[in-house]
Each structure stands twice: as C-alpha cells, then as structure tokens.
C-alpha cells in the first residue's frame, strides 16, 4: 500500500511541477468548450469532454515516458510492477478528478437548466477513467513522446468526427462519455446512460489489463538471473 501511494504521490508531484502540462490540462478543455459554445449546448459539453480526455491522456503519456528510464531502477529498489503502473494510474486519476471540478462548475454555471448535471459529472468521470490508462498504454508502447502525441491526436480527431451511431464508433475509447453526455444534454431515454456506463467500464477495465500486461512484461524478472538470499 505504501509503495503504491508513494508512486502515486511522486507522479502527482512531477506533473504539478510541469507548468506546460498544467497549462495544457486547464486550457485545452476550456478552449474546446468555448469554441462550440455559441452553438448547441450539447456540442459544447461533448467538446469539453473530448478536451478533458485528450488533456488527461497527454498528461498520462508524458508521465509514462518520463518515468521509463527510472522504472527498472525502481524495480531493483524493491517495487513490484503493479506498484509502478497502478500507482501511476491512481495519481493520474486523482489529477483528472481534481481537474474535473472547475469544469463541472463551469457547466453548472454556464449551461441551461435542463441539462442533467449528474450526467455531465458521470461523463467526465468516464473520460478521466479511460484517459489515464489509455495515455499510459500509448506511452508504454511507443518509445517517444512525439509518436505518442501524434497517435493521440489521431484518436481524438476520429472521436470527434465519427458518427456515434455508426458501427465503428463503439471501438473508439471515449464513446462512453459521448453517450452519457447525450443522455445528460438531450434528455434521452436511460438506454444511453446504461450503454455508456457499460462501455466506459469495459474499456477502462480492458485498458487497465493491457497496461498491466505491457508493464509486467517489460519489467519482468528475467529468467537468466537467480537471486539467492545472503548468508
């Protein structure tokens, strides 16, 4: 437990000190929201979600890339792989949740009264839940930040442009938050909420497992070494 939260704490400390990342986390969703604001309120809220998703994913990507060289050493220092990836994920989730608060307040204040605020909160929760392991997975698999950022950009663009009712849409990672946002704004039937919730849960779980797999393999105990206790 202690090791898990130490990693989470250090992840947060590192991110908070990176002014660029913080600016990104705050400005990007805001920009996304404002751009669509004069249009239909649903657009602006969905845009906001995408902005939060992209920002948190990028922060996760950078955090994972920065720690890559350190992780083998931490392994030797006594951390198990699950401390390292779960700890980082917890830190990123915490950051994402804290980040959501001002944007939720923004929606509370700015959006018309018919919007289901609970739904907006749920959608944002979904974004953060998926974004953290998603960014970590990309950061773990692609060697450099640049390639990872480009991939994220592609995913976000696809997410933005794809028709949510189309067949391929369910394969995009942030589809869930879009569905829940639709439930919140368009006051549709509860089917949207249910579908979105399940999708979000499933994608989060799947991404967490993938991250666990990649990290465990990369930080595995190699078979050519035998460790014996000192006598």
């Amino acid at each position, binding site marked *: 437990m202690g090791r898990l939260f130490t990693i989470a704490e250090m992840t947060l400390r*590192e991110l908070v000190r990176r002014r660029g990342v913080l600016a990104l986390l705050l400005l990007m969703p805001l920009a996304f929201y404002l751009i669509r604001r004069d249009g239909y309120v649903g657009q602006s809220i969905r845009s906001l979600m995408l902005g939060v998703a992209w920002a948190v994913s990028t922060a996760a990507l950078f955090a994972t890339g920065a720690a890559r*060289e350190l992780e083998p050493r*931490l392994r*030797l*220092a*006594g951390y198990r792989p699950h401390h390292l990836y779960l700890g980082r994920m917890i830190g990123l989730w915490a950051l994402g949740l804290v980040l959501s608060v001002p944007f939720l307040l923004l929606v509370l204040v700015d959006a018309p009264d018919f919007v289901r605020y609970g739904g907006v909160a749920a959608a944002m929760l979904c974004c953060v839940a998926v974004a953290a392991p998603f960014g970590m997975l990309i950061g773990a698999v692609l060697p450099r930040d640049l390639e990872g950022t480009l991939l994220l950009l592609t995913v976000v663009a696809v997410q933005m442009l794809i028709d949510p009712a189309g067949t391929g849409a369910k394969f995009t990672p942030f589809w869930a938050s879009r569905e829940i946002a639709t439930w919140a704004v368009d006051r549709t039937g509860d089917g949207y909420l249910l579908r979105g919730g399940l999708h979000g849960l499933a994608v989060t779980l799947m991404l967490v497992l993938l991250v666990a797999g990649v990290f465990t393999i990369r930080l595995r105990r190699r078979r*050519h*070494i035998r460790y014996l206790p000192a006598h």
Partner: protein
Amino acid sequence: MNGAQWLDAFAAELGRRGVDPETARHVVAEAATHLRESGEHPTQVFGNPSGYASAVADSLGPPPPPPPGPARRPGPVRLHATGISKRYGRRTVLHSADLTVRAGQIAAIVGANGCGKSTFLRICAGLITPDSGQVQVVGSLGYCPQQGGTADFLLADEHFTLFGAGQGISRRQALTDGRSAVRVLGWDAPSDTLARHLSGGTRQKLNLALTTMTQPDVLLLDEPYQGFDRGTYINFWDQLWQLRDAGRAVVVVTHLLTQLDRVDVVLDLTPAATTRGGR
C-alpha cells in the same frame, strides 16, 4: 585567505592526494611553524594550497602499498556470471564472458568504447536478457546507470523517499540515509532544486547515492563519475574502497585505468582479450 584557512585547505588537499594522515599532520604542522616564525603570508611562502600539496605529494613518492595486515580473505561469492553472450543483429557484443565477484572485492570492467561493458552490467542487473549464460546474485542488488537514473521534476529529497519506500524504509530514515550517502560525495546543492536544474556532476552524485543509500550487497556501477571534478572523483573511489572494506561486492565499469592496481578483479571485454574475470 588567512593563515588558518590556508592551512585547512592545504590539509584537505594533502588528503585528496592520498598522503597518509600521520605524514600530512607533520607537514602541516611544519608549515604552520614556519609561518609563525617568518610572519609572512602563506601564499607568499608556499604558493596556493593545491600547488604546494602537489609538490609535497610528489616529494613523498607514491603511497606505500597497503600492509598485508590481517589477511583480507575474500568473502562468499556475491555475483557469479557465466557464459554471457549477446548479439544485436549480426554484431556480437559479448561472447561467453564470465565474472565472479566475492564480498569485499572490487571488480573493474574495462575495454574500449562499444565493447559491451554497459550491456554486460545491465545483463547482470537483470535489465536485459542475454542470448545465453546465467547470472547468480547472492544478496541485494543495486544498479547505477551511466545516465538518466533520476527524475527531472523531483527534488533530491523526494528521490530519497521514493527509493527508500521501495524497501519499506520510513521517510525520515530514507532522508537520513540518502542525505548522508550524498554528503560523502561532497554534496553542495541547495535542497530545493529540481533534479533537472542540477549540474551534471551534482546530478550524478544523486544518481550514485540512490544506489549506495540502501547499502546493497552487490553494487553495479556504470561509469557513474561523468562530470565529477577531481576532488569528487577521489572521494568516489575512497567510498568504493570503504564499501569494499565493509564487505560489499562492487562492480565498476570504467575506461579510466589509473585505479586498476587497487582493484581485485579485472574483466577486459576488448574482443580477443581474455574474457574470464575472477575466480
């Protein structure tokens, strides 16, 4: 600087040059007496402390080999690597290299650039899988990479707590251990500096301290002295000998051969040289 400061600096410089403490005290005392009698300024009489200390050290000749004393029997085997081979594509980097290091020994891995020294060490540390060969480690292991073992955006103290927590060490203990580990190397950075703002040599001190602070049984060091000034480099080797005397097994990758006569095992990875080291 005044007389007392000059004498202090002089004493320190003598220590750095390996003059044994007894002789150094005599030399410093004689200089102090001379200054008292002549009443002149030390820089006028002797020059700067460093230059004079060099002259004295030269006059004294090389330090005598350490007396045989209570024969230091090497302890149990701590690292046993056999038949390590590694190929990258068509390039054979390591061909059946062996290394055995016992507790209380220092092993140096030498060879030209690019001959696989770092790769061998990383294989021993368990970071890379070799194509063939086995490694046996008895006790705890510490590894210090040549570069990049520190987190840009964390403070030195945070590094200490981070690495300490891996072993379940309390925060306060980790801070104490880490700070003393880094002080041995001559740490002089303010405590609120991010790692990325430290000078190269200072950052390397932190890097090295993160390995030594947990006092592992086996230390694998990959040329960790990049950016060290001469004084720090000497402190570093002093610390290695202290670690050896304390019963640890130390493996250092180095391309600087000047300390080889005070090292127990040498593994030369230059191709076509013998690739067996230690027994």
